[in-house]
């Protein structure tokens, strides 16, 4: 697990149009210089928003990535919930600090 590098790639992607072009043209090549596991590469390539959330990606980075992929807000929230249901609690990062409140914690979208 290399959450730092997953987030670093997303940080670069979110703020740099050149990285966005490279990622659209060839995700594998764009990701090649980052220290990532196969699971992380797949999550970033699909993209699997739910898995990225479970891996611990900060929402302030992840929501921009979802917007980049034209994922609507309600769908973005649901994909994270689905990710927790499929892969389990958040494994690392800020949201793992005191546990995950779960889908029931969301009062509304």
């Amino acid at each position, binding site marked *: 697990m290399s959450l*730092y590098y997953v*987030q*670093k790639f997303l*940080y670069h992607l*979110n*703020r740099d149009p050149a990285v966005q072009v490279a990622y659209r043209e060839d995700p594998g090549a764009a990701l090649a210089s980052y220290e990532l596991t196969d699971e992380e590469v797949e999550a970033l390539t699909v993209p699997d928003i739910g898995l990225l*959330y479970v891996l611990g990606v*900060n*929402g*302030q*980075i*992840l*929501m*921009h990535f979802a*917007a*980049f992929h034209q994922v609507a*807000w309600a769908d973005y*929230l649901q994909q*994270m*919930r689905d990710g*927790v249901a499929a892969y389990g609690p958040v494994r690392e990062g*800020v*949201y793992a*600090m*005191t546990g995950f*409140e*779960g*889908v029931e*914690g*969301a*009062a*509304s*979208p």
Partner: protein
Amino acid sequence: MTLVYAGCASHAPGITGRADQADPETRDAFYAAYDGMRADIEASGAEALIVLAAEHFANFFMDNMPSFAIGMADFYDGPIEDPAWLGIDRFRAPGNRDLSQRLISEVMQTVDVSYAEEWKIDHGIAVPLHFLTPRFDLPVIPANINCQGPPLTPLHRAWAFGEALRQAVDSVPEKIALVGTGGISHWPATPDSGKINEAWDRDFLDRWQRNDRDALLDYDDLSVYSEAGQGGFEIRTFIATSAAALGAPGTVHFYAPIPIFAVGCTIASYDLEGFPAPDST
């Protein structure tokens, strides 16, 4: 004394990006309060606006994360987000490099602040600017406190930064407005987005209005996270603004939870008139 305005405002991206999904009555009352803040800043004669933000990995990352940073450029581009998603078109906001440099040099006398000659604006600053300087005709100076990537800036250091900012602002001849931006309790960009702890927010705002240093610093990150979500870490911008007000009393002009905006939307300001008292300095 050249700090002519000090206040706080919410900056959540949904405020502009999901405007059509909010209750119109509450949304419009919030927008009207933001308009009131703009009118107050314009009436203050401010020649520059410091936006004290809790930026979200637009400029600073965990490879080199400053506790504090101030922009030092003649312009700032934004937003980094997809313009359609945020509801704000791409813009170039004017800066004032010379003024920034003088302020930074003074802040450095007491707080080890980083400076940035390039700064990409994200929603944390873009949303306030959308309401406060919609024509981009007021020089902006972005400032930041690390509220996102733990270990976070300690609250008492956020207070010290606010004091240093005030000392710096008062050392230059220009009239300057300061707006701290952030959320109080919220769980932004997570599955719990939309959850808001209104009681926690109102208690915090009571402390903020009283400008009660001890009460404002009486939080720890674990309890904030538990009761106010990771978005609650952004109280640092409110706290620094309190410190900059040097004991002045505050007024909350608007507060209402707006779940689709993912935050208790807030507009508040300090009445700087007569503060600090002449015999307190």
